[in-house]
Each structure stands twice: as structure tokens, then as C-alpha cells.
């Protein structure tokens, strides 16, 4: 056995090391040392990002079980940055009385899901894929139910784990059918044996449904809003960005690698699902009062846009998709950062509570505005560029009408994003949220996100470096 193969999975190994060291720290650190938990976690994440950044080359490892390409490393790195930002934002929340003693669990569980995503992305075999998927989703349930004394958190956790199990049951059923009709689970070997027979179509449908559940595409999205609302806000942010991004990328790699012979079928499926997702999510988002719920529907509709990058199955689509995930991460985490800090400081989470926010907390309101504008795709913020590129990719693949429908939907989405902006700037309020000072970690995270929102679009080098990574399968 060639042990140098392990060098190629250094990302995963180092992540496991990070998890282990955090576990040990949690176990061994005394009460006085525990306050250094967050800096330590963040430092380790920085280290992890550094390791991810070391150049590597494409490789098939362990007999094709594990695939490594620069594009995948880039995606992993984006997810890691997202996790780091989530950690930074967790400061105030984790200092709370009922969470301070279990902050180690938060880091370890979050990183475990990240590890799962790493494996899911790099999988070259459905077995590893499935294990990665489950590693990513099982600890997530714990995270969702993290605030265990809170009724809503528990309810959201139950909903998440039950629906996740149900969906993985169906996904597995699909996988079993694929296995039954082809006799292999290796991505390399599968395309030759996929013929598009009715059995395989059914298998594909079940597999797709399972993935759509993770990405929260309509009609597999129904858990999303409830879980997002009930989960702790940091977890919601993580769920909406990192979990979703990894699942979309993984789905795209599987679709391209495995289901390539069925391209017309899955394009058809995605076509209708995108329309349904964007439209229905937008319609739902119109009437939401709870900001977390609102962002849940917004993230569902964003997932629809993400699928526009997938639908073409092209290199341009993949580049646009990864870029979109990056931009979406910056914007959505900025929004969640603001919302969570406000929730922690004032306990308010309804749109109406945000009335007049600009007068009392202008900086936060401004950052949230930028984030919402970016989500809505307003230039010069990065969201505009990512939307443009993803539309371009879908358009290039010939989905003109679909792009048009998506574009019309951006108008609806603009409406509800502007509602929040309107609340902050225009609506009068007798009792606005009192001014407060945010903690340093949150500020750093918000600065990072804002910088991302502003710079990722205008600085073309970022897109070009993703583009340079190529198709990356």
C-alpha cells in the first residue's frame, strides 16, 4: 500500500486532528483555561485553512474510493472559512449561562459535520458518499437541538432528525436500486452501466430527493423553515450556508460523474424543481415576520439559484456555482451575524422589531443592508456578480426560459429584502432596539463578511482563481 496517499487526504486528517485536540482540550482544560476555547478553536481553524491552501494535485486514492482535485479543496476551504466565521459569531451565544459549559461540544459537533462534508465532497464511491452525508447530518441534529432547554430547539431537532432519517432511508433505497442494477458503487465504473432504465430512473429520483432534502429544494424543503427557526441562530447560519453549499457541490459532482448518461433526465428534473423552488420559496418569504424563518425561505430560493449552476453540468456552471457559494456565504453569514448578535443582546427576532434600527445601531443596520443587497443581487456587491455568472452559465446551456423565470423571481426576492431594509431605515418606531456594543469576535466576523461582500465581486482574481481550478471532478 502506498502510504503517500494519506498525504492527499491531509485536509481530512488535519481536521480530525483539530477535532481531537478540541475534544482533549474540552476534557482536560481547567475552568480558567476554558475561556480560551474560542480563540483556540479559531486559531486551529486558521491552521486548517492554511493546510487546505497548500497546493495539491488531482488524485484518485484508495482504489477510487477517494477523489482529490484542487476544485474540491477549494470548496472545502470555502466551507472551512464559513465554519470559522460561524465560530467567530458564536461568542456571545456560547458565553450564555446554559451554553457556556458545553461550548466544546459545539465546536466538536460542528467540525464533525464539516468532516462529513469533506468526505462527501471527495467521495469516489457511494459508500463513502453516504457515510460523509450522514456524518454531516447526524451531528447537525445535535446542533439543532443544542439549546436543549428551549422548547423550539428540541422541536426543531426532532423534526430535523426524523425527516433526515426518512430522507436518508429513501436515498439509501435509491442507492440500493442503483447497486442492484449496476453491481458497483464506484463513481468511475457507474456511468458505463447507467442506461436510464425505469429502475434506475426510480433510483435516481430517490437519490435526488435525498440530496434535495439536504439542499432544501421544493418540495423537499418543508423542514427547512421550522428547523431554521428553532435552531440556535449560529447553527442556522451554518446550516444555511456550509451544509447547503457542500450538498450542492456534492450533488453536482455525482450528477456529472455518475448520472452523466441520464443528463437529459436530470436536467429536466432540475428544470422544474428550480422553478418550483424559487417561486414557492419567494412566495413564502413574502409573508414571514420572523427573521430566521424569513432567511430560511430566502435561503431556499437561493438554493434554487444555486441549482442553476448545476443544471448545465458545465465547467462554467461549476465555477459559477462555487463562486456563488462563496458569495452567498459572505452575505448570508453577515446577515445571520447581525441577526444573532441582535437576538443575543435584545432577544428580538421579528421584522417589526427592526423598525428604526438604523437610528440606534447604524453600523449593524448598514451591514445587514449590504448583506441583503448582496443576496438580492444588487451591484456593486458580490451577489450581483455571482447571480450574473450563474445566470450566464445556465443561459449558456440553453435554459433561456428558466433564466428568465429566475430573473423575474429576483424581483420578488428584492421586494422582501427591501422590506427589511425599509424596516430598518424608514419605518418609525417608538421603542427601537437599544444601542449596544458587539463583542470583538462578532465584529471581526462581520468585517470579514462585509469585506467579502464588497470585494469578491469587484476583485476578479477570486473568480479567476476558481475558474483556473477547472472542471475539478
Amino acid at each position, binding site marked *: 500500500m502506498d502510504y503517500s496517499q494519506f498525504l492527499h487526504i491531509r485536509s481530512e486528517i488535519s481536521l480530525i486532528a483539530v477535532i481531537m485536540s478540541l475534544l482533549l482540550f474540552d476534557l482536560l482544560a481547567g475552568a480558567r483555561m476554558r475561556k480560551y476555547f474560542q480563540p483556540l478553536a479559531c486559531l486551529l481553524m486558521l491552521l486548517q485553512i492554511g493546510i487546505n491552501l497548500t497546493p495539491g494535485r488531482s488524485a484518485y486514492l484508495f482504489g477510487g474510493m477517494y477523489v482529490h482535485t484542487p476544485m474540491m479543496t477549494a470548496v472545502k476551504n470555502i466551507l472551512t472559512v464559513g465554519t470559522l466565521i460561524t465560530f467567530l459569531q458564536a461568542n456571545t451565544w456560547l458565553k450564555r449561562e446554559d451554553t457556556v459549559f458545553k461550548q466544546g461540544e459545539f465546536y466538536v459537533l460542528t467540525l464533525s459535520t464539516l468532516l462529513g462534508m469533506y468526505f462527501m465532497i471527495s467521495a469516489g464511491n457511494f459508500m463513502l458518499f453516504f457515510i460523509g452525508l450522514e456524518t454531516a447530518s447526524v451531528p447537525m441534529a445535535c446542533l439543532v437541538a443544542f439549546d436543549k432547554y428551549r422548547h423550539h430547539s428540541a422541536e426543531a431537532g426532532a423534526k430535523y432528525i426524523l425527516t433526515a432519517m426518512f430522507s436518508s432511508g429513501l436515498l439509501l433505497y435509491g442507492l440500493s436500486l442503483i447497486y442492484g442494477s449496476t453491481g458497483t458503487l464506484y463513481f468511475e465504473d457507474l456511468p458505463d452501466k447507467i442506461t436510464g432504465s425505469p429502475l434506475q430512473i426510480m433510483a435516481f429520483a430517490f437519490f435526488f430527493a435525498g440530496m434535495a432534502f439536504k439542499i432544501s429544494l421544493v418540495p423537499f424543503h418543508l423542514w427547512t423553515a421550522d428547523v431554521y427557526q428553532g435552531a440556535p441562530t449560529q447553527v442556522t447560519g451554518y446550516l444555511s450556508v456550509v451544509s447547503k453549499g457542500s450538498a450542492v457541490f456534492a450533488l453536482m459532482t455525482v450528477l456529472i460523474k455518475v448520472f452523466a448518461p441520464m443528463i437529459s433526465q436530470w436536467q429536466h428534473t432540475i428544470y422544474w424543481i428550480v422553478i418550483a423552488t424559487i417561486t414557492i420559496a419567494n412566495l413564502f418569504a413574502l409573508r414571514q415576520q420572523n427573521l430566521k424563518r424569513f432567511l430560511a425561505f430566502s435561503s431556499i430560493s437561493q438554493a434554487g439559484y444555486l441549482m442553476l449552476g448545476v443544471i448545465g453540468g458545465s465547467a462554467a456552471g461549476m465555477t459559477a456555482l462555487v463562486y456563488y457559494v462563496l458569495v452567498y456565504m459572505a452575505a448570508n453569514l453577515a446577515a445571520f451575524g447581525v441577526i444573532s448578535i441582535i437576538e443575543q443582546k435584545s432577544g428580538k427576532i421579528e421584522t417589526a422589531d427592526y423598525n428604526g434600527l438604523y437610528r440606534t445601531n447604524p453600523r449593524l443596520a448598514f451591514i445587514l443592508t449590504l448583506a441583503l443587497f448582496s443576496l438580492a443581487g444588487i451591484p*456593486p456587491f458580490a451577489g450581483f456578480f455571482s447571480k*450574473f455568472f450563474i445566470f*450566464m452559465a445556465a443561459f449558456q446551456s440553453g435554459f*433561456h426560459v428558466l433564466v*428568465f423565470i429566475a430573473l423575474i423571481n429576483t424581483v420578488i426576492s428584492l421586494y422582501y429584502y*427591501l422590506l427589511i431594509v*425599509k424596516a430598518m*431605515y424608514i419605518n418609525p418606531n417608538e421603542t427601537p432596539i437599544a444601542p449596544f456594543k458587539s463583542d470583538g469576535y462578532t465584529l471581526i466576523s462581520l468585517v470579514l463578511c462585509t469585506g467579502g461582500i464588497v470585494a469578491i465581486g469587484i476583485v*476578479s482574481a477570486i473568480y479567476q482563481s476558481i475558474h483556473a481550478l477547472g472542471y475539478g471532478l
Partner: protein
Amino acid sequence: MNFLSLYVLIPLLMLGALWACRNTRQIRGVMAAGSSALLILSIALVFLYIAGRRAGNTDSMLFTADTVWYAPLNIHYSTGVDGISVAMLLLSSVIVFTGTFASWKMSYQTKEYFLWYSLLSMGVFGFFISTDLFAMFMFYEIALIPMYLLIGIWGSGRKEYSAMKLTLMLMGGSAFLLSGILGIYFGSGATTMNILEIAGLHNIPFDQQCIWFPVTFIGFGVLGALFPFHTWSPDGHASAPTAVSMLHAGVLMKLGGYGCFRIAMYLMPEAAGQLSWIFLILTGISVIYGAFSACVQTDLKYINAYSSVSHCGLVLFALLMMNATAATGAVLQMLSHGLMTALFFALIGMIYGRTHTRDIRELGGLMKIMPFLSVCYVIAGLANLGLPGLSGFVAEMTIFTGSFQHADPFHRTLTIIAAASIVITAVYILRLVGKILYGDPVNPQHLKLTDATWEERLSVICLITAVAGLGLAPWWISRMIGESVLPVISQMIP
């Protein structure tokens, strides 16, 4: 990048400087300096441009520069100007300049107001200097969104509703537009986003043009107040604060006409020829319909907004006539309408700032109370109804002459119908002038009001000078534009 990028850089610097400002005086200083710099830049550009043409430069664009931006997608930041964009830049800088002074006394969240204002102007300038589809679209959208906050926060009346409607409808338009831009890009072989190069390639298949031309045209048409997509305009203008109405009606609506010409018609000439009749009918309706609607409005701004619908309809109408004269007229009309409607909105804002009403039934005898503003209002009205010596005449006559070069009954009839609008314009302008300026003051409270302050005078006089300058000496600008429309027009005439 060349000196044209100053048009983007100066607003950017203004944004930065405003950010650092601590008090109103500094803010005003920054705005005055910045907008003057832009105005000076535009005037210098006019001279440079004319000198460049005199020197025998016959390229379709001058001062072109190109910076690769997104190489994989052929997106460049490329700039260049021809006579049309020079005229539009001049217009924009005049209006940004005067708008600054018209909102001199802005007291509520001054800094934020001017921040968004500068961002808006950056979008406008960027749009006019760009020759790249992506950059144009980006600047177009940059110009749209500050509008929401400017109207929503600093507006009046049903400001939230209006701001939302305006933003959504314009964004709906840009949804069409984006489809059109993508269609053009891929239709021409996805090798370049540069307008000039696409026009040079001239290879978009006809059947694709027939899809993307209407889409693009409607996209820009929404901003150009094309019937029936104009309904954002009355509400939006009515609710917007003074300088924003000025900038919006004066410049932003011109983005629509400019885009229709520069993108939709320039790049897809065959489809434009084939499908122009549909849009001619729509714009013909706009012209007449706006004018008739204006006749019975009671809110000053609504009157002006409908009048804008009518006049901007004339812009698109003339463009669709597709000959050099009419196109020149269209650009002149953009210029003229921009200036005079900005003048109108400035004056309405100033009157409203004093009387706190825009209902013409509650106004009267203003000539006695504020003679300066009233006289200027009369001048604006006369410009609007096309008095020779002011800009409206020049533009309208060029349009009608150009439109009349088509000998078929369809174009003829439409031209005559459009020309009839000048009578209706006279009806509502004179009704308005008679109602609010003449007569005796209806409200004794108004007798205490004062006439214009120095910065208001500066702003208004600047606009009147521009309107009269264009009206008295139109030949140089008409030539400048006439030369520049030729490359576009020659694409259309096989």
C-alpha cells in the same frame, strides 16, 4: 483606464470623503467640490471630443480604453464616448450639479442622503462611459437601487409604496434586460461583451434577434417609460425628494433611451427593423396618453411625471423611426427633456418646500409671492411646450422632421399623432401656469413666503442657461450627435 474613469472615480472619492465628514458644512463642501469637478470634467470632455473630431478622428468612439476584468467571461471594463454619450454626460453632470444645490438645505440624515446620491450618480456616469455590456448593466443597476432609499427615506406622500413600486418595476425591467444581454452575448458567439466589437461582428442570427430585441427593448423601455410599463413614474416622481426627481427624470430615464439605442437597436438592427412597428405603436400611445393624462392631474409632480411619460415616449418613438435625423432628435430630446424636467422638478420642489402642498387647487398667485421661481417656472413650461429658442423646440422639430422622412401611411399617421401632443402639452402647461402662478394668492398664509435663496437661484439659473443655450445654439450639438448616430443607423439601413 483613461481619464473617462474619473467619472467613476470622482463619485467614489466623494463617497469616501462623505463617509469621513463630521458636519453639514463639510458635507456640502464635498458635494459642491465633487459635483463641480464633474461638471468641469464634462465641459472639458465636450471640448476634447470636438477637438478630437476636428483632428479627423473618425472612430465610432473616442477615448476608448480597455481593462480586462473577468477574462474567462470576456468581461472587460472598457470605456469610450461618442457624441451621444458626451451629450448625456454633460446632461448628467449639469443635473448632478444643480441637484446638489437644490438639496442644499437637506437636513434629515444629510450624510446618508448624499452618500446614496453620489452612488446614484456614479451609476449614471458609469453607464454612459461604458462600452461593455456587463459594465453597462452593472452601472445601470447601481443607479437604480439607491433610488429606493432616497425615495423611501427622504420622500413625501406615499413614499414607501412609490419607492417599492418604482424599484420593483425597474428591477423587473432589468430582468428583461439581463436576459437580453445574455441573449446578445451568446447570440453573437460569446466571444466579446464589447458593444463595438459585437456590432462589428454583426452576427446575431435573425431569429434570435427577434427574441432578444423585444426583450432588451422592453427592459430599457421600462426605464424609458414605455407604455404600459410607465406606471412607476408618476408615483415615483411624485414621492421623490427634489434632487432625486431631478436626477431620476432628468438622467435616469435617459438611461432607458440610451440603452434602447446603444444596445437593443445597435446590436440587433434587423430585428429592430422588423419589429419596430409594435413599439412604435406603444410609444405613440405613450406620447399621446401621457399628455392627455397630464391634463387632468392636480398634483404638480404628477403633471410633470405624465409629461415626462409623453416626452420620453417621444424619445423612443424617434429612435424607432430609425433614421439619422430622428435619432439625432431623440438624443436632443433626451438632453432637452432632461434639462427642462429637472428644472421643473427643482422648481416644484422649491415651491413645495415653501407652501407644503403640490395640489394645484391650493396654489395660486405665486407670481406675486415668489416672482423669481414663478418666472423660471414659466420658462420651464415654455421650454416644455416647445418654444423656439429653448431646447424643446430644437429636439421636437428634429424628431418630427426625421420621422416624416418615412413615406408610408403608418409612420406618417403616427408622426402626426405624436406631433399633436405639442398642442396637448400647451393645454396642460398653460392650465398649470394659469392656475398656480397667475391670479391672486388663494391662501393668505402663502403671502409670508419668500423667494428663492442663493443656492436655489444658482441651481435654477444653471439649468435655464443650459436649456436656453441648447435652444439658441443647437447646431454644434446637433452635428456632434448627428455624426455619432450614423454608425448605429448605418447598421439598420441595409
